[in-house]
């Protein structure tokens, strides 16, 4: 019998063993926690990244659930916004976190404009329709919709089926990350400009802050990071210690200040569709070449090129696109989400590892990470590591625990160690510091 006060010690000791944790009260690791632990260990072994060693994969994967204490519901993402919806020939994950997403449903499903939408009405409207055209129409409308992989296997639709399973971080411009050898600590910390929002990008910035990076979070005054209005504890964890700059991206003066900040940065993190910053005149490809040593981290749903570049994703639907709902079906008999927005924490860690490695290795890289690509690659790594039977078994154990309200049992919630700035609290100070006195 495991004593209650030894629960967290057991959790830590067993963290590298995915099948463990069947003792009463011990933590049952969620899917891909082993692969994430391996990734964290790789990251922590880099010069200057020792603080990463204190992190645990399961804890990062379920960090938002640890903060919200939200319950597990079968067939529904822990956020409540993403659900499985059956089509005539397959299964979709439909993620509708924004009020405006619901306004687009009539257009997506070519339905009469009248009447309000609900999940039952959505189920009804999708039931008779073909998967592939629904995914395509959702892409055009900017809705986060993904098909389970079985439904699309062999459909020949490039950008949907052909996820990169091998390389989680793709260097679009610059030398391969594998060329970074004989790394030494750098004399000073990098200046990191975090233009991202929600989870994956802010987690990347947070991990770079843990490594000593000087991180500035930049938000649009018109469209601040939506996570500010979500769970405050979770937002505090990911954004602690970052100074906050808020600018009106629509005003020419502020846009010039934004461009000036971008020019000063050693590492830029952004999680927008490639066209968004291009429309503001900020071009990643040119930025990387303008001064040696720079690293640009681009986080997208499905990559920067082709039809994928226009397609949005959030962590839950991207995980489904990567095949994780199929894993859960193999484990449980029904389509389930393999965690909470699983592609977000996976991508955040991989992005930070790639950014830190690139910075140590001299920079000059544009690195593209897609939520779906990273999740798919981590799934492939975990299968490689433990075999698919063990993975399916551990996914089943975690799902059973989650259904009993024990998804996060035995995991400790991290506490922030630095304050969080209100949006724009440091705008004047940061601009003065980086541009000199006005």
């Amino acid at each position, binding site marked *: 019998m495991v004593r209650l006060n030894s629960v967290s010690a057991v959790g830590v000791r067993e963290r590298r063993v995915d099948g463990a944790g069947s003792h009463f009260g011990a933590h049952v690791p969620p899917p891909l926690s082993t692969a994430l632990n391996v990734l964290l260990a790789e990251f922590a072994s880099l010069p200057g990244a020792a603080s990463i060693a204190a992190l645990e994969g399961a804890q990062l994967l379920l960090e*938002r659930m640890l903060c919200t204490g939200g319950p597990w519901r079968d067939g529904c993402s822990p*956020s409540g*916004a993403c659900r499985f919806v059956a089509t005539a020939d397959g299964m979709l994950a439909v*993620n509708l*976190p*924004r*009020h*405006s997403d619901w*306004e*687009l449903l*009539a*257009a*997506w*499903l*070519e*339905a*009469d*404009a*009248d009447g309000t939408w609900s999940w039952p009405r959505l189920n009804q409207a999708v039931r008779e329709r073909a998967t592939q055209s629904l995914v395509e*129409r959702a892409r*055009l*409308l*900017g809705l*986060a919709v993904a098909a389970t992989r079985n439904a699309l296997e062999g459909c020949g639709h490039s950008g949907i089926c052909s996820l990169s399973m091998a390389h989680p971080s793709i260097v679009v411009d610059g030398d391969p990350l594998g060329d970074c050898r004989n790394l030494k600590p750098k004399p000073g910390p990098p200046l990191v400009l975090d233009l991202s*929002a*929600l*989870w994956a990008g802010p987690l990347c910035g947070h991990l770079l802050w843990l490594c000593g990076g000087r991180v500035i979070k930049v938000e649009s005054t*018109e*469209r*601040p*990071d*939506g*996570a*500010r*209005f*979500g*769970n405050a504890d979770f937002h505090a964890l990911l954004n602690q210690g970052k100074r906050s700059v808020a600018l009106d991206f629509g005003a020419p003066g502020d846009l010039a200040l934004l461009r000036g900040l971008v020019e000063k940065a050693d590492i830029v993190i952004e999680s927008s*569709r490639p*066209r968004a910053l291009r*429309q503001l005149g900020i071009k990643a490809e040119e930025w990387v070449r303008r001064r040696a040593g720079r690293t640009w981290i681009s986080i997208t749903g499905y990559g920067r090129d082709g039809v994928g570049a*226009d397609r949005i994703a*959030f*962590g*839950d639907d991207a995980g489904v696109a990567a095949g994780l709902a199929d894993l859960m079906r193999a484990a449980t008999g029904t389509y389930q989400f393999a965690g909470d*927005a699983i592609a*977000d924490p996976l991508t955040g860690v991989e992005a930070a590892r790639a950014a830190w490695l690139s910075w140590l290795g001299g920079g000059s890289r544009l690195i593209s990470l897609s939520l779906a690509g990273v999740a798919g690659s981590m799934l492939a790594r975990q299968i490689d590591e433990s075999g698919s039977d063990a993975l399916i078994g551990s996914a089943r154990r975690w799902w059973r625990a989650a259904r009993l309200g024990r998804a996060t049992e035995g995991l400790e919630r991290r506490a922030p160690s630095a304050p969080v700035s209100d949006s724009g609290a440091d705008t004047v100070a940061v601009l003065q510091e980086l541009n000199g006195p006005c």
Partner: protein
Amino acid sequence: MTALKPGLRLKSGVCTAEVMIVKGAGEASLTCGGVPMLGLDESVDGAQAVAAEMNGCQVGKRYVNDDQSLEVLCIKPGEGSLAAGGAPLAVKQAKKLPSSD
């Protein structure tokens, strides 16, 4: 005149623009570059754009009429400006980010 229905896709007769109806009922005369927009399977010869209505439309932006009874989403960018019944459509404010995903 076009019978409006959510989800209907229309293309410009004078540029590369394409839109999808997000909201709207009844009929409207939608134009791009001053020339009526076409169904995806339609074509038109020799349409002359109105120079004053070639200020462009941006992909991903939602455009609305004055009383917001009509809303279209630009799904392919082009040089023409969008209008309904002769009145230009205006860009609707960007979607707010969700508080969680």
